[in-house]
């Protein structure tokens, strides 16, 4: 009997040794099939044809993605006035596999330290507010990668998402118009929120985390306001400041108290959306 117990315990240890408790959280799978194509600073990884039941990108679509991403890469450099020349890796997971693999059924997320981002590819073109047809998001995830590397780790979600939304200039969700899926501009969304009286004050934005269009648009618009009112250089210095030190640091950099700035921001919103 004792021997049987022993064998069972030993077998159990042997099995969990092979599978590992860590696999309960993460199954590190490095045997996946990717096709890689690159252009300038963008390296796109995508699935071969018929890899899943849902479509994989065609060569022509990958060309569009490469062109778009390089365009956005340059746009970020110009907007933020920073130097960055590393490659950024884009991983396109087909929609049929994405939820299991990357915990997303749409959209994507950035992995700053690995200069990468994941995106759920569903084969549907979307129109960016700048007129480009995009298949793998706009500048949003690229902004996360680049700002996290160049400006330091984000101190608040408000500026982390704010930078991404402000530079990309688009909404998170699309609307169906004239036969196309279109992203709306942040200004359009904020116009609606303002008219409904639900604009978030900066003080609330800093202490809040929400992963929805409302929060993202508010954070983006607030960041646009900071860019416009205090300049890129000062806003870049605020990017890694945590919420607990934000008010003090803001005053040090601008000479304006946080409370004064909040009022200026609300007046700015009023000027932009209230009159019409």
């Amino acid at each position, binding site marked *: 009997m004792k021997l049987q117990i022993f064998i069972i315990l030993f077998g159990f240890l042997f099995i969990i040794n092979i599978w590992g408790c860590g696999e309960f959280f993460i199954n590190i799978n490095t045997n996946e099939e990717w096709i890689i194509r690159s252009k300038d600073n963008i390296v796109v990884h995508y699935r071969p044809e018929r890899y899943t039941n849902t479509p994989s990108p065609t060569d022509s679509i990958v060309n569009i993605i490469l062109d778009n991403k390089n365009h956005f890469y340059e746009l970020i450099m110009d907007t933020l006035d920073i130097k960055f020349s590393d490659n950024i890796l884009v991983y396109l997971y087909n929609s049929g596999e994405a939820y299991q693999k990357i915990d997303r059924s749409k959209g994507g997320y950035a992995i700053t330290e690995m200069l990468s981002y994941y995106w759920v590819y569903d084969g549907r073109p979307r129109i960016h507010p700048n007129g480009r047809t995009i298949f793998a998001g706009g500048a949003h995830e690229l902004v996360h990668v680049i700002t996290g590397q160049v400006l*330091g780790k984000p101190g608040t979600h408000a500026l982390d998402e704010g930078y991404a939304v402000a530079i990309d200039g688009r909404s998170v969700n699309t609307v169906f118009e004239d036969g196309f899926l279109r992203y709306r501009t942040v200004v359009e969304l904020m116009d609606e929120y303002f008219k409904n009286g639900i604009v978030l004050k900066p003080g609330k934005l800093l202490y809040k985390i929400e992963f929805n269009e409302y929060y993202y648009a508010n954070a983006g618009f607030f960041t646009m306001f900071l860019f416009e009112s205090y300049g890129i250089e000062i806003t870049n210095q605020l990017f890694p400041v945590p919420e607990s030190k934000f008010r003090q640091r803001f005053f040090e950099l601008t000479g304006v108290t946080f409370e004064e700035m909040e009022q200026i921001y609300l007046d700015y919103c009023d000027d932009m959306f209230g009159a019409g």
Partner: protein
Amino acid sequence: MKLKLLILLISFTVAAKSDENNTVNRTIHTGVSIKYTDIRSVHSIPLFVLPVSIGYPFFHSTPIELDIFSILKTERREHLLKLSVTIPSRITSDSGTGSNYILDADNSNYLRIMLEYNYLLRLLNWNKGALMYGIAPAILYEHKILTYISGQKITRWDLNMGIGPSIVINYQVFPRIELTGQFRGLIFPLYTSFGRYKSVSEGGHVFSSNYRPLTYIPSYGIIMKWKRKDSIISVGYSKSHQISGAKRNIDYYSSVPMLVVKIDRFHEFYISYSIKFK
């Protein structure tokens, strides 16, 4: 929780006391081991679906580790004290087909130093086998430098103190050959861990911050021991995961985004030699 800790403490005290004066069968082994480690580091992801199957890109490192250890064994108890130091090794990246698009591997490196103590008590014992359980406090220091192709650099180090349960099963396959299976789950709380992160961008912009990591390291291993007259030669394999998340301060539930996330897998192969002292 406090009650559980008290019961655990009392059970160790009682078990240890019963063996206190037993010096007849006491042996001490002191030895060294050399270890080849294959480390794959993946990235942070939101853990809403478990397990999440991910792979690319990953950072890859294969350090050689040197261990010095001492084991004090009595009939019922075992004390292991071990110091492990890796030789700093380069880090490269694999994007999916073996290509490194990210790191300057020659200027990226990894160092790990660990001091661990494992206190084991005998739970079951029979002719050829034994089951032991115990606790394993440890101090872990990790230092990582990531230099990207552009020249920008991230340096981070952390010092972690933690403790966790351990289970060991021994089986005497032949008179001189013993097979051992072991599990250890180390938890390094925020309160006893501290780290420092610094990044220097290509344009010279510096960002630095302290951080407080919360780390869990489950580890499993199999060892085959060849017991000679005055020495033991062992070969072993173990697999560990390191799952860690760190914010800038101890307030883990604050809305400040994560500063450092580690998801690493270690495959370790080693050979050790120890000498017996009576």
